[in-house]
């Protein structure tokens, strides 16, 4: 009888590495064939999405739009008996759900990137944005001793603070106390960050901390003295916001009236994204009509954003 050769760790590792290498090479060859694409013709002609019961709407996407979807869901259910399921995932998730035909509707707080547009074109999807609310990028701050209305900034000053040109509050305005600025930003890929950077003309940012959502931004600013950050309108209720100089040089606070009249210079539209214009009479068309009606827009105002009608 042969003696059993023992497997040393080195031999085990070699065998495992060879197996993993085979797996890696197979990934090139086999993966495209085992990936199942959803049936596209059926969806195009009949207008519904496989895997979704006809009395449910799944809205995934931006966390900024999520409060609106959550507020509208019970109202829509009362009117039509349709369930609206809301989930987060970011604007990227909202776009990819529509592009991959997983859901007919998604939520986004930014415009689609070139990657997403090319993927949509490759899949035969036309991304259509339906604005449902007005939002503003509020610059929030925390300087001990100063209160709401004491800080007035121009867009240029904000850009200097975020790109590291100004590192002390006294450089921003000689009337402010001489303390170093603690700059808080958002994670890369955030729709709010993208809007902020394009709106205020900020390029390469130098921040001291990155947070991952609006609530964390607000709590970080509130707990760190001499800090500055940005968030969307619905979350800025309990924190001091800066007044930004508009086109004529006048400083506007991010109040609902200023955002509605587009006087506040950093406004943006929150949108639902669909594949093309929804067929008249379909569930999505009814839902979008509901959101843009008086009742839906009252819900938008209740959440903290500004209505679009």
């Amino acid at each position, binding site marked *: 009888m042969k003696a059993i050769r023992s497997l040393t760790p080195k031999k085990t590792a070699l065998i495992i590495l060879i197996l*993993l290498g085979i797996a*890696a090479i197979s*990934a090139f060859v086999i993966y495209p064939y085992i990936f199942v694409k959803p049936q596209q013709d059926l969806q195009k002609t009949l207008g519904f999405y496989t895997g979704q019961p006809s009395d449910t709407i799944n809205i995934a996407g931006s966390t900024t739009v999520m409060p609106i979807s959550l507020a509208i869901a019970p109202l829509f259910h009362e009117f039509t008996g349709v369930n609206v399921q809301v989930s987060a995932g970011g604007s*990227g998730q909202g776009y990819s759900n529509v592009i991959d035909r997983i859901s007919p509707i998604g939520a986004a707080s930014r415009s689609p990137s070139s990657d997403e547009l090319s993927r949509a074109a490759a899949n035969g999807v036309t991304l259509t944005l339906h604005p449902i609310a007005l939002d503003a990028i509020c610059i929030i701050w925390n300087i001990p001793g100063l209160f709401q209305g004491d800080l007035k900034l121009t867009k*240029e000053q904000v850009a200097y603070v975020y*790109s590291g040109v100004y590192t002390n509050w006294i450089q921003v305005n000689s009337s402010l106390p001489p303390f170093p600025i603690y700059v808080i930003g958002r994670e*890369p890929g955030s729709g709010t960050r993208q809007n902020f950077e394009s709106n205020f003309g900020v*390029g*390469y940012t130098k921040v*001291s901390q990155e947070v991952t959502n609006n609530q964390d931004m607000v709590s970080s600013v509130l707990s760190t003295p001499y800090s500055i950050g940005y968030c969307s309108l619905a979350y800025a209720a309990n924190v001091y916001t800066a007044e930004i100089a508009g086109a004529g040089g006048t400083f506007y606070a991010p109040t609902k009236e200023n955002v509605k009249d587009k006087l506040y210079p950093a406004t943006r539209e929150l949108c639902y994204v669909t594949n093309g214009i929804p067929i008249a009479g379909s569930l999505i068309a009814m839902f979008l009509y509901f959101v843009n009606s008086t009742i839906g827009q009252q819900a938008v105002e209740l959440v903290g954003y500004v209505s679009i009608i």
Partner: protein
Amino acid sequence: MDLIGRLRKVFRNLPVDVLTRPAPSVDVLQLRGKEYLRRFFSPEGFTGVCALSSFIITILILFFLIQQSLPILQEMGYGQYALPLLSGLGYGDYAWILNNGNIVTGLINFVTGSTWYPKYLSFGILPLIAGTLVVVGGAMLIAVPIGIFSAIHLSEYCPLKIKNIIKPIIELLAGIPSVVYGFVGLIFLVPWLAGVFSLRSGQTALAGSIILSIMILPTIVTISEDAISAVPKEYKEASLALGATHFQTVWKVLLPAAISGITASIILAVGRALGETMAVLMVCGGVANMPPLSLQMFFTSVKPMTAAIAAEMGETAVGSVHYSALFGVGLVLFGITYLVNFIADLINSRFKKKFGRAR
């Protein structure tokens, strides 16, 4: 023929040394080839199906990781495409272009690049690796001494009744979800650190290290305590018989004897700490800068690899370069964890050789 005759015939035909050969152990009953296949496709083969399913799942996950991270691993000269992509130049871009105008991908640039700035397609993960190493290294510096001393106390000094209370409660620490650790750290630890060290904010690598060390403590304590208790009684009896005090026995005889088991427990704890996401996401600050090479590294905000993936995956466009870069980070993390497990295997096998059984 009678029985004796038949037996004589059998014995005459056997090889000469069969009676002096050592008796085969049960290990020899290895199923080979056709026998294994026959048993596999019979009712008892469901055991084989279970084992195979775990194996296939691991392979498929690796499939997916490599497939999704291919764009970032291929040699692509993004340098010449980076400038037109900087549409809408803003403040700070001029300095950026002067310093970093040429952005390329490829595995070497990916792993050794020192700028992680996805907006400008700059995917160098060295700051992320450095962040992970700082946080995990700090956690080991805190948890290893405390864990080993706890294990020594539990196995050598603690009365049995108290040990039966303390040990289960330490093991309870391992059952707390990591997001709870992160939350507790955010509410209590971060402001406390800011107060003690007079920092602007307590969101630093030190906060992440402290939280991680509490998380890996049960692993080190439990396994080290087992290793110390498993040292043969003869060692301790011999040392005490030769006149050593209890203290000398513990430090000069028992610990060196159990050192392989203790090292294996440390490596396992490192493996756990490397993969920890939620806690480091909430307390480490999340800024992808290289930490300075001094004691100051613990007081700066870092972005560990796991936190980078968790923070950025949600809002990334599926299929973009950023998406595949995040999968590349996952692949590097997979490689590092595999390396750690391999080292643990090596140490275990050396322990086997020394003492005839695994830890």
